[in-house]
């Protein structure tokens, strides 16, 4: 076994009940199995998946959003997404990865620590565990894969405040939100001690002599407790329904409320300037999402294949459902409806992709398409908020449908996979009601943390640099005012 920082979690330390320490001292006490070697197939897939998730953001999300704004704000949309990717990549390697995926000491339930800041101790032969005991991938590829998630999530938010938020405010808000909201939420939902520590502690407990039971049980409890808050509750989120979509959706909603409506909202026409680009963007999102969802298996495995087929089925179903609902509600099915439905389906299937069966994903997609369409038209119009690109209606609502739906559809009786119990080494008995309640708790945690956090951060940024350009500048368009260039020079 190479030394301490090897596994993403200081897991062996946990096995010895020394939660707060790094692995090295524990090695002397625990029998050490040979260090697992990454499988080249897994590694190749995860390298590919990481690049696919980047494709979702640039150019996918950038074009999807860009096509939806008016010509005068096209570049502002592209650059806001592009900037977000670049800045988050940098803070991810400096401290973001460490805050999300390292052991956090006293505040471990909420956020990680700084033990991996500047990627300390990580080398090409350092590994991170997948979800299977004894299977690892190079830690660098795990860092890259998670980096792309950290990059797309804040980029989703900017759609809510599209066409009316100063670039300087974006530049300040994005790193703050990533730091105080994304990294902690990712830690709360995804950080755990890992399969090998859990399995070893369970084995030690099973084989412990009667007088050592108490100590073994304490060690087991310590391993279980070495996880984020939502993970400890038992909430499941395969690829980021809460971490990515509810998280960004509610932040965008707060942004739309705090920044306020666009000048002329409700009185002037603000039609999308290029639905062609929006469809290109949506299609790139769909393709990239295979990296996002199937990659979240962390292995080139059957679970990845399940996530892939679910990502096909739910997306297609949601696109059709949205268009059909439009046909009945407004008389005509629209391309924008189809593209929005596809994204809503992708969002909803994200947490369920590795748990639901394909028929479950089909139902989930239909529900997401119809409910999100209702939110983006009826509810939004009734409440009168200007969520410019429907980040709330698609990502937050779609994410909630997905998170709650995962609790239902993961049930083996509905064709789901159930939840693997690492301690018992088998699929656990499934308690659907209990799981749905747990999922709802994780949703509420995210809504409160991200909604509250975003509200505070928007207020802070407003005090520091101001959120909005002047009315004349907004009418002129952010492309010229903030960036001194135009998207189209005919």
């Amino acid at each position, binding site marked *: 076994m190479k030394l301490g920082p090897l596994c993403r979690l200081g897991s062996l330390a946990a096995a010895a009940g020394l939660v707060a320490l790094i692995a090295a001292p524990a090695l002397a006490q625990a029998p050490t199995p040979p260090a697992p070697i990454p499988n080249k197939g897994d590694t190749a897939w995860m390298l590919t998946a990481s690049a696919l998730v980047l494709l979702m953001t640039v150019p996918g999300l950038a074009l999807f959003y860009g096509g939806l704004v008016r010509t005068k704000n096209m570049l502002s949309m592209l650059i806001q997404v592009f900037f977000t990717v670049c800045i988050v990549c940098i803070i991810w390697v400096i401290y973001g990865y460490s805050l999300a995926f390292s052991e956090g000491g006293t505040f471990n339930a909420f956020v990680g620590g700084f033990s991996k800041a500047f990627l300390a101790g990580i080398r090409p032969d350092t590994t991170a565990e997948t979800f299977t005991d004894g299977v690892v991938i190079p830690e660098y590829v795990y860092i890259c894969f998670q980096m792309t998630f950290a990059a797309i999530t804040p980029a989703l938010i900017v759609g809510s405040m599209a066409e009316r938020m100063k670039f300087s405010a974006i530049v300040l808000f994005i790193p703050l939100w990533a730091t105080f909201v994304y990294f902690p939420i990712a830690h709360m939902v995804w950080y755990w001690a890992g399969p090998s520590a859990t399995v070893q502690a369970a084995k030690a407990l099973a084989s412990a002599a009667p007088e050592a039971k108490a100590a073994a049980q304490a060690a087991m409890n310590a391993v279980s407790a070495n996880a984020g808050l939502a993970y400890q509750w038992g909430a499941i989120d395969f690829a980021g329904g809460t971490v990515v979509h509810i998280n960004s959706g509610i932040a965008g909603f707060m942004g739309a409320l705090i920044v306020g409506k666009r000048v002329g909202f409700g009185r002037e026409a*603000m*039609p999308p300037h290029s639905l062609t680009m929006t469809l290109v963007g949506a299609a790139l999102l769909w393709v990239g999402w295979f990296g996002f969802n199937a990659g979240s298996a962390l292995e080139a495995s059957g679970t990845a294949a399940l996530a892939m087929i679910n990502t096909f089925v739910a997306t297609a179903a949601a696109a059709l459902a949205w268009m059909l609902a439009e046909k009945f509600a407004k008389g005509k099915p629209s391309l924008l409806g189809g593209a929005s439905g596809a994204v809503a389906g992708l969002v909803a299937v994200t947490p369920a992709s590795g748990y639901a069966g394909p028929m479950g994903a089909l139902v989930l997609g239909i529900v997401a398409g119809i409910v999100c369409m209702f939110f983006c038209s009826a509810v939004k119009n009734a409440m009168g908020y200007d969520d410019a690109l429907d980040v709330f*209606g698609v990502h937050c609502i779609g994410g909630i449908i997905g998170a709650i739906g995962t609790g239902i559809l993961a049930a083996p009786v509905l064709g789901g996979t159930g939840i693997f119990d690492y301690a018992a080494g088998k699929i656990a008995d499934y308690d659907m009601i209990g799981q749905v309640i747990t999922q709802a708790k994780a949703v509420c945690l995210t809504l409160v943390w991200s909604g509250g956090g975003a509200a505070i951060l928007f207020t802070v940024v407003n005090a520091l640099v101001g959120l909005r350009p002047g009315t004349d500048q907004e009418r002129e368009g952010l492309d010229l005012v903030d960036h001194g260039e135009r998207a189209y020079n005919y």
Partner: protein
Amino acid sequence: MKLVTAIIKPFKLEEVRSALTDLGLQGMTVTEVKGYGRQKGHTEIYRGAEYAVNFLPKVKIELVVPVGSVDKAVEAIIRTARTGQIGDGKIFVSAVEHAVRVRTGETDDSAI
């Protein structure tokens, strides 16, 4: 010389052009324009947002013809641009005082 200005539905442009060329009329200027007459506009819906679009895309053809060709040209445009639906467009005929071909300096009828 007369200036014939015809505002027609964009998809009728090719038929109109071909009919005018068959009459032996050489050259025209085409502009993409927006406007409305009795047709008024239509409604566009983007997700929840409904917009009444008043100005519809049209094509404006301008050609200058000798006085003797005006009726034929107008008749050809009417014949080819008409769909019978509201929004088929309008034709205006006005007088032109003078014309010059830049390359040769020819004037009036020989310049068009």
